[in-house]
Each structure stands twice: as C-alpha cells, then as structure tokens.
C-alpha cells in the first residue's frame, strides 16, 4: 500500500494509461494494511452484524402483533451481562500485557477470560432453566421464543470464541509462535470479545425496552 | 457465417412468432385493459432493443470474423458513447416506468362507489360472502370456525347477521359496477385470479388483502389459484359470472343470510347468541 486512496479514486483509475501503469507496477498487492486474520475477523463480524440486525428487524416487526406478551427479565441476566463486561475489560488488559511481553500476567488473564466465558454460558443456561420452570416456554409466546433464539445464537458465537481462545491460549503457552503472530491472535480474540459484548448489549437492551 | 446467420434468423423468428403464433392473451373483461396497454408499450420498447442488439451482434460476427493478419481495434473506452447510451437507456426505462406507476396508483386506489365482496379461500376451494343489506361485512375470527359457522363470523357482531353466505365456488358480479374483492384465507397463501380480469392479489392468513375492478362484459369466467398452496393447488378452481343487473338480482335472492343459516343448523346456542345481541 503506497498511498491512501479513497474508493472512488481507486475505481476511477485507468489501468491502461502510461502514468497509471508506472504507479501500479510497485503496488504491494494488498488492499488494506492489516493481517489477513484481522481482515477475516472483520468480514465475519460484518456478516454476523447483518445476521443479528435481521433478527432485530424480525423481532421489531413481530412485536407489533397484539399477541405479544413481554417476558420478565430475571436478575441473573444482569449478572451475566456483568460477567461479559468484565471479561471484555480483562481481555483489553491482556492485549496490553501481551504487548509488553509480561508472560505470567498474560497467561493468568487468558485463563481468567476462559473462566468468565464458561461462567457466562452456564449463567445463561441457568436463566433458561429458571424461565422454563416458571412456565415461559418458547411455544407459549413468541417473545419467549425470540429470547431463546437470541441467547442461543449469541451463545453459539461465544462457543466459537471459546474455541479460538483455546487455540490461542495453547499456542501462547507453548510459545510456538513469533511474538507479533501471537499478539495478532490475542488482539483478534479481544476484538471478537468486544464485538460479542456489543451484540449482547444491543439484544439485551432491545428485550428490556420492549 | 453460420453463427451470424443463425443469430439473425433467431431474431427474425422471434418477431414472426410474436406476430403469427396463436398464443396471445384472452380478451379482457375488466377495466384493466390499460394493463394490457402497459404490456404493449413495454413490448415495443424492449422488442426494438432486442432486435437492434441481436442484429448488431450478428453483423459483428459476420464482419469481424477472425483473420490472422488483421488486428482488432485498441480502444479501452469511449466516454462519450458510453454516457450517451446510459442516458438513452435511462430515458427508455423512465418511459416504461411512468405509465406503470400511474396504472398501479389506480390499481391500489379503490373507488368510493365500489361494492364489497369477500372472497374466502381454503385448501382447496373458494367461497364468497356478500355484505347484505347493511353493506357491512361482519367481523370474523379463525377461532369461530366450526361446522355450523364455516365462515368463522364472530357471533356477537351484529353486522354479520345479514351477510349473504355463498357456500359454493360460483360468484356472480355486476357488469359495469366497480367491485372491491376483500380477500381472506383461513389456512395458507392463495391468490384470487381470473385471467380475463388481469387483476391478482395474494391472500394471506391473518390479514385481509384486496383489489378492485369493474367487469366490462357479461360472461362466465374461471377462477384460478395463482399462489402455490399445496398438493391441491392445481385443482383449486371456481367460477365468476358477470351478470346484468336483472340476472344478478335473481342469483342474489337465492343466497341465504348468516342468521338463516344458523337457524337451519341443529345447534341453537349460536342462534341464541346472535339474536340476543340484537
């Protein structure tokens, strides 16, 4: 990447013209100056955002029908939200430790994140258990169905995150990668964690406000 | 040579097929002849483009076929030509769109003096309901549907009492009077379609959809379901008969009201409910 160009400048280049040929010949062959893993994560996040946005659109549309009965919000959901916020903060800290190459602290932080992620999932399962026991089935009202659907899809995203957290942590502990590479991976996981927190806050806010 | 010739012949053949094949639309029987006009307009514009481009391709293939010693022209782009073509296309497209939107506006705006008919669809058949003397269709609900009340009229709604129920697949409509079809289905999607009327609208469970038309000639037309609705979709037919006033009255007189229908049935509770509400 030689110079920053806007998308419009890029698309109006005339590749057959002499001046352009000269400028193009030493182009690196990359469009943006970040690692492929980071760009991959952004692509996935964009697709996920569309997915969740469509769920939200469906939710808002379905909400207007008069058979809608709101669900109670168990206090445990607030607790789980807290766990998620905490794990995001810890992950942010982890990237800083990793950057400064403080091995022990980074390692402990990574473990803590795993613990928090699992706690969040277990917490969500307990919420499900409570709701089902008090008669809020998915079939009894579509608001409940949306709640179970949202938490499932979000939970699956978390499980995907845990898989990559596991791979990253084991690579970090074995020290099998170069410093830049492992930091790159930790950064990516951290961004994903923040993304999932944001998604959860939006979904939770939506369910609270309706 | 063969290639150029066949593209040329395909184009000529398409034109010939268009003008001389026996397959064309049925004679229109409603006020929506202007839909046919929009189709014709589209035909002329797109047909001209089709012929022009195909001839151009055929000419190029014939004229510029491969010769080893010849070189193709080197011309990456021609801004002027491209912008002219873009504008010409935009104008052509606008010429198609504008009349289309005008007619659509008419299609979705029901005239004040239209009388209402409910078309009732189920898997797989048609029934109809007329508003009766008070000109108001009584409210309905899926929960009320049972053997005695096949249309699911809400018993407590007084407007439903005098509704005429046509428990058959044949509907009569008046010639030269605008009619608004209120479309209701109790199960899956259907679509009330009479080819000669041109109009069409899906019927969606949970909501009432509509469209309107003015029949313009007396006749007996077949009703088809035009939205796939399961195994019996192809057999879901009915009839619409366009009548002059006199014949229409005769037919109307034969239909029974909701109240009478309940009276005929064994279950008197329903009837009590309707009467009491009066």
């Amino acid at each position, binding site marked *: 990447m030689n110079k920053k160009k806007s998308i419009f400048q890029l698309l109006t280049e005339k590749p057959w013209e002499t001046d352009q040929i000269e400028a193009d010949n030493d182009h690196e062959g990359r469009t943006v100056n970040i690692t492929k893993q980071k760009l991959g994560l952004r692509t996935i996040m964009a697709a996920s955002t569309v997915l969740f946005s469509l769920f939200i659109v469906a939710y808002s549309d379905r909400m207007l029908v008069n058979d809608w009965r709101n669900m109670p919000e168990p206090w445990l959901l607030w607790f789980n939200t807290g766990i998620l916020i905490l794990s995001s903060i810890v992950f942010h800290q982890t990237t800083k430790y990793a950057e400064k190459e403080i091995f022990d602290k980074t390692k402990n932080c990574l473990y803590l994140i795993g613990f928090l992620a699992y706690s969040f999932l277990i917490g969500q399962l307990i919420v499900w258990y409570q709701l089902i026991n008090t008669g809020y089935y998915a079939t009894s009202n*579509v608001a409940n169905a949306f709640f179970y659907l949202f938490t499932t899809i979000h939970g699956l995203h978390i499980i995907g995150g845990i898989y990559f957290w596991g791979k990253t942590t084991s690579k970090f502990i074995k020290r099998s990668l170069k410093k830049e590479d492992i930091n790159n991976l930790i950064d990516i996981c951290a961004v994903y964690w923040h993304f999932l927190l944001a998604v959860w806050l939006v979904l939770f806010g939506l369910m609270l406000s309706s | 040579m063969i290639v150029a010739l066949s593209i040329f012949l395909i184009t000529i053949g398409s034109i010939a097929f268009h003008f001389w094949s026996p397959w064309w639309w*049925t004679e229109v029987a409603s006020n929506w002849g202007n839909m046919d006009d929009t189709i014709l307009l589209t035909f002329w514009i797109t047909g001209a483009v089709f012929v022009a481009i195909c001839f151009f391709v055929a000419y190029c293939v014939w004229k510029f076929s491969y010769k080893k010693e010849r070189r193709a022209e080197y011309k990456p782009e*021609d801004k002027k030509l491209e912008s002219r073509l873009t504008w010409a296309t935009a104008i052509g497209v606008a010429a198609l769109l504008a009349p289309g939107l005008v007619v659509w506006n008419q299609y979705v705006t029901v005239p004040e003096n239209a009388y209402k008919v409910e078309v009732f669809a189920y898997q797989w058949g048609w029934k109809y309901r007329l508003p009766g003397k008070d000109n108001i269709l009584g409210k309905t609900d899926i929960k009320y549907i049972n053997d005695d009340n096949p249309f699911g009229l809400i018993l407590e709604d007084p407007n439903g009492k005098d509704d005429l129920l046509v428990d058959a697949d044949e509907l009569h409509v008046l010639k030269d009077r605008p009619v608004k079809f209120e479309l209701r289905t109790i199960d899956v999607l259907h679509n009330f379609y009479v080819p000669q009327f041109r109009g069409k609208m*899906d019927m969606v469970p949970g909501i009432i959809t509509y469209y309107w038309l003015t029949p313009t000639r007396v006749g007996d037309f077949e009703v088809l379901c035009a939205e796939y609705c*399961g195994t019996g979709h192809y057999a879901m037919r009915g009839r619409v008969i366009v009548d002059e006033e006199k014949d229409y009255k005769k037919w109307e007189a034969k239909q029974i009201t909701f109240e009478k229908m309940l009276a005929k049935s064994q279950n008197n509770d329903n009837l009590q409910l309707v009467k009491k509400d009066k």
Partner: protein
Amino acid sequence: MSDENDHKLEAKSDYVADAPSVSTPDIDAVPEAELPDQELYHSHSWWTTYVFSQDAKYIGIQYALTAIGTGLLGLVLSWLMRIQLAFPGLGWLEPSSYYQFVTMHGMIMVVYLLTALFLGGFGNLLIPLMCGARDMAFPYVNMLSYWAFVVAVLVLLASFFVPGGPTGAGWTLYPPQAITAGTPGYNGGIILMLISLILFVAGFTMGGLNYIITVLQLRARGMTLMRMPLTIWGIFTATVLAMFAFPALLVGCLMMTLDSLLGTSFFMPAMVSLGETLTHEGGSPILFQHLFWFFGHPEVYIVALPAFGIVSDLLSVHSRKTIFGYRMMVWAIVGIGALSFFVWAHHMYVSGMNPWFGFFFATTTLIIAVPTAIKVYNWILTLWRGNIQLSLPMLFSLGFIVTFLNGGLTGLFLGNVTVDVPLSDTYFVVAHFHMVMGIAPILVIFGAIYHWYPLITGRMMDETLGKIHFWITFLGSYAIYFPMHYQGFVGVPRRYFEIYDSPYIDTSTLLLNKFITIAVLIVGAAQLLFLYNLFASARLGKKSEKNPWKANSLEWQTPQMPPEHGNWGKELPKVYRWPYDFSVPGAKEDYIPQNQPPSEIIGAKVEKT
C-alpha cells in the same frame, strides 16, 4: 516507498515515449517485496491430496464436480415434470411427487448447482491463479467449506428417503404452506431442506471468507484492484453479496425450523389446516417472504455477476480485443451489487404487502436495468472491430448475449409493478427466470469450462462434440423458453400439475407444451454428450500447448501447465499491466501477458483516451 524506488520509476517512465531505443533492464524494476511469501500446507498422503485437499485448485474441481452431479439430478427432475405437463394422460406422476420435483429442481439448480459452481468451483479455481496467489488465505477453512457443502448435499438427498419424501413447498418455501399438512413432505422433507440450507450457508461463509480475503490481500505484486480481470471482480462482488444476503436465509430457515419443530409462531398465523385448528397465533407469513427475498434477489446476482465477469473475459480473449469500457464494467458490477439489496420486494408486488411499497420497488428495479444494459452494450461493443474467433467459448458467450438480453428485457416487464400484475405467477415468470438465470449463466459455465479445461487437465475438449453440444443447447433452450412466455400471456399459471380442462385455454397450448417437452428431452440428452466430452477428453483429448487461447491473465502464465501445488514455482509473478492488452498497436503479438516485463515488448504504444 523509498527514494531508490522513486529513482527507478523515473528511469522507467520514458519507455513509451521513445520506446524503440530504450531497453534498459531498469524498466522492469519492481521494489523488493516487503511481505513474506505465503506458507503452504503440503499434503502427505493420498487422502490429504485428493480427498481432504487444501489446495484451492482441487477444492474448486471437487466443488464443480459435486455441483454438476447434483445438477444432473435437477435436470432429470425437470424431465419428469415436463413429461407430466405435456402428457397428462399418462398419469405417471402423483400431484404430490410433481410438486416435490418442482421444489427440488428449483432449489438444486439455484443454490446447489449455480451458486456452488460459480463461487465454490470457479472461485476456488480462478481466484488464486488470476490474482497471482499461491493458494487461498485460509486453506484449511476452505477445505471445511467444501465438506460442509458435501454434507449439505447429502442431507438434501436424504430427504428423498424419509417418510413423506422431500418437501414440495416450492423453492421459495413460503410458510404456512411449507410446514402444514396440505403440502408434501411437510414434517420430514422440509426439516431436512432447512437443515441442508443452514449447512450450505455455514459452508459458504467459510468459503466466502477465503475468497474475499484472498482477493483483497494476497494478490501478486503490481496487481492493483483495477488490474484484476473482470472474472475476479464478478466473483468477488458476488461473494460480498452472498456474505450479506445469506444471513437473511439463515434467519428465515432457523425461525421456520423452530415453527415447525417446536410449534413457535414466528411466521405461523392462527389458521385452520385441512379442518384442524392449529395452535399457532399471530405470526407473519409476509415477514418470511421479506427475509427470503432479501436473500433471494441478491442471490440472482450472486449467480449473475460471476457470469458477467467470466463472459467479459471470454469475449475479450476470443475477439482478441480489449474489453470495452473496463471501468464502466467494474462500476456496473459494483453498482448492481449494491442496488440488488434495494429491489427485493419486486418479487412481492402481489404478495399482500403494503401496496405503496410497489412504487418504491418498481423504481429501484428499473434503475438497476441501467447498469445491466450498460454491460450488454459493452459486451457487444467489444465485438465491434474485434477479430472474432468462433471458438467454443466464444460461441457460448454469443449464446449468452442473446439469451441474457432476452431474459433481461422480460425482466423489465416483471419489474414494472403494473405490468407484473397480469403476468406474475404465470409461465411468463418461469420463462423469464429460466432464460436470465438458468440458460444464460449455464451457457457461460459451459463456455468457461471449454475455456479453462486445458488449464485443469492440460488437454483440449473435443471441438466437434462441443459444437454439436452448443447448437443443441443454445437453439434448443431458446426454443423451450421463448414460446413459454406466450403461455404466460395466455394466463397459464405456474406450479400447475395440469390445467387443460380450463375453458379459456386453447388445445393449441397443450400442443405447445408437447413441443417444449420434446425440446427439453433433447437438450437434456445433449448434456450427456457434454459429460462424455468432459470425462473422455481428460484422457483422449488433444494435448494443449501452454496458454492455448493466447490470453493475458495470470492463470495461463504459471511455470507448469496444469499449475502445480503452490501455482508459481519458486517466485511469485510480478504484474506489469492490466489483463486486456490485446492487439496493442505496435506490439509484435496480438496479446501481452500481464506478467511480461515492459523490456520484452518494446514498440507497443498505448493511446491516451
């Protein structure tokens, strides 16, 4: 950029001005790569080489063969349906099997053949080669993508063997009909269909991630975005569309699965199904339609854009001429892609949605006709004053222009809201979409296979068989779908198992149906010829020279042909020009490969435009 490089640039800049005299090695200079070469996965066993391959070329071929195999099933299903339509007296199909075949035919052709073949097949094969990469960005994920596709296909096929058979809901799967008792396969087949689609979306997302990252980040040095062949632009834009459109299908499928399995009411309203009142309440069938077409309309372009791109390259190479209006072509691809998300409800003019949407969607739909028309103009202007070789790929490209033009123009009928009212849900629609997204893209696929076959196998496909195949396919399919429009005018509704007792339908319409069916059988049989050619030529075909079509793009410039693992031998290629330098004035040959250094082609002059 360092100062040293600036220097070299200056030296290079005058090579065109007084070209014949200058021939310093400097003009080829390109600064050293700052990025490390890609690490590759090297297979160790037969299994990891041929089955669980991580080489994009193999994955592409695997994708293509699986898709073609599934597509053959779709073809056979279409035969069975057409025989029923032409000879209803035979009584050899039940209505329920007819509807199951209609559904499976539609879904297989749109998703499992066309989408998988264009993006999975051609995407995997061509992206790394045309961009000058060694492989995809994430080869392992790429392999998973293919196997997810295989599982999706198997689940789909399994639905033929469950009680009740595959779903007969129509490929649009509209609820409530898709999951209620009046439709064949409403409790078994539909679930497998939905699961299969969910798997397909998951698999595709993994593949799509690869295509996007590879195109954006792993191109050869000198390969700017505006030097990419239009094939890559088409596949890339289609992939981006798919990444944003498939989530809508996923949402629809997930919610419908729950409606069916758990009895929730996302899409299911209160209803009486065949006399039985169901427990659902309040759901909105139209919501599903919006979700479906928010995926479904971009899906049309997911199939069309790669075809646009590929056909542009075929036309350019085989008429030995620069593609006309490259920039306009790129803008049209990107523009069509962006607009395709704002036109979905033109499938729903008579769906019962708020009729005022009709104004908006008719307008956006006709606007999208403008960039599409520009593409057609540019294709035919590429032919103008070209040097047209009537090779097989060129024949199929010409066939594409005629059929796509025809199908595109009938799109103007259906997109214009009023004109759509009498024509919607009739055979006019069937004829339109088969012409525009069935025949046209498939002709491109054939052209592309004839074109790139030597790259894959090192041999040419048989020309005579190919020509017979072309003429039968092209003329035959035109004979099938052109008259079919007129059945639509008559008012023959689609998805009718039989209709001939209707008073307004002339017996001649049945005659037309017979004609169409016979054409279908012949065209279908001609595909066997193609298959024979495809497999036999791999062993018997004439050995191909390197770069047999004298093309410029990178995939033909690999050190070995067919390219080996890692594609480029020791050193990655360097790109010095765009891929459309055909018939450059002053050059010795009528083509200049993208990686040919300027020092080797002195004398070529390019006019300013």
